[in-house]
């Protein structure tokens, strides 16, 4: 038999608030609360918390479900699991940054390696885009540009195709980097706008896209697979983000796979 007069524990108060207390004990808890104002206040506070949470997020269920989350849409793509997995990986990668930002709290005071990276990239960008005659060391037309930079940087580099942004590869140059040599690729648009891509080895774990503003420039950087990347250009975040996504998509699909083209489509659809 349950002793109606036994003291109410804190656990029981939670169980009571969450509606899981057996009926025969509920009454005892209510009696207890009537004579223990501190406990009653705690219970009221917990209930108010739950109310606030429901008030804040409860209405999400009434929102129309976005197309991409309908089962039909997801099933239609089932035949290309590889493609979806790739897209999801990229999505997770891109959104990871937002979560990282929200989960921050013990942010380190010292600049991270990737942050120093971004500074280096911005300095290089600032210095070389102003050069009229010698913005680059080796022109894009020269066959040895990529093999050379790849060898010095230590990975097979490909210069992303950014023609959808009206950006044409001018060429590249080698830079000292922070821990290891860095490659700087420069692109130019028909209107003369210049964008640079900076890449070098890093010990930073994989990170998501981060944006940094420095005067008129914006730099988007991330790291992946032991390499850090920074895209620098005029401070236009949506555009730089789109460029970075396009690059990431091309670089990520470096390993040829049968689902490659469909993955590309998937990602560009998502990005549009």
């Amino acid at each position, binding site marked *: 038999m349950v002793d109606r007069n036994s003291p109410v524990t*804190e*656990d029981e108060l*939670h*169980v009571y608030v*969450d509606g*899981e207390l057996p009926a025969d004990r509920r009454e005892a808890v209510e009696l207890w609360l009537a004579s223990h104002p501190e406990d009653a206040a705690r219970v009221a*506070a*917990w209930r108010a*918390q739950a109310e*606030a*949470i*429901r*008030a*804040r*997020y*409860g209405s*999400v*269920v*009434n*929102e129309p*479900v*976005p197309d991409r*989350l*309908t*089962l039909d849409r*997801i*099933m239609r793509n089932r035949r290309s*699991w590889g493609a*979806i997995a790739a897209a*999801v990986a990229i*999505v997770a990668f*891109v*959104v*990871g*940054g*937002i*979560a*990282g*930002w*929200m*989960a*921050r*709290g*013990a*942010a*380190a005071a010292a*600049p*991270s390696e*990737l*942050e120093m990276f971004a500074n280096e990239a911005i300095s290089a960008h600032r210095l070389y885009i102003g050069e009229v005659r010698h913005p680059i060391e080796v022109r894009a037309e020269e066959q040895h540009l990529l093999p050379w930079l790849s060898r010095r940087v230590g990975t097979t580099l490909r210069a992303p195709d950014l023609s959808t942004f009206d950006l044409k590869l001018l060429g590249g140059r080698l830079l000292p980097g922070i821990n290891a040599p860095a490659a700087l690729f420069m692109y130019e648009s028909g209107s003369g706008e210049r964008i640079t891509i900076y890449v070098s080895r890093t010990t*930073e*774990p*994989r*990170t998501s896209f*981060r*944006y*940094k*503003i420095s005067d008129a420039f914006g730099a988007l950087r991330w790291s992946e697979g032991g390499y850090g990347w920074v895209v620098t250009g005029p401070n236009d*975040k949506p555009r730089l*983000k789109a460029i970075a996504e396009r690059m990431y998509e091309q670089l990520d699909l470096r390993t040829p796979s049968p689902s490659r083209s469909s993955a590309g489509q998937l990602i560009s659809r998502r990005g549009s």
Partner: protein
Amino acid sequence: MGTFHQDIEAAIPALRRYARALTRDGETADDLVQDTLVRALRSEHLFHGGDVRSWLYTILTNLNRNRLRSLARRPTLTPIGDDDAPDSAGPEAGGRDIERALALLVEEQRTALLLVVLEGLTYREVAEIQGVPIGTVMSRLARARVQIKAYLDGERPALRRIK
């Protein structure tokens, strides 16, 4: 199999709600839901009856944990997406407070609290989803509530530490 898909479809709005509260960001939340659905369909053959909804919550909870764990360092640059439209639910002061309070919790506590108070799951279901004994779920709930209360009462406790 028809009902399996129907059960999944029926759970999507609630999954979105849970993910939204977990991540406090609409886009991130929907990405998590999408990832969850893809995995659920892919692992359909591994599902041997039981509550589809709980199973989906389990996948989403695990994906979210992986996501947070993969963020080893917290650089101080602006996150991309910070100029995204604010939540349509409206940032009234109370909503922002509870949002900030939730943000202070460690992931396990936030998950336990949201599954119970927002999703209405039982302690037993939450214990299964989190893969821990019921007692652990209860202590997570208790700690979550103490922290939120302290925050809302105006204390500004030290931000959560990395374990």
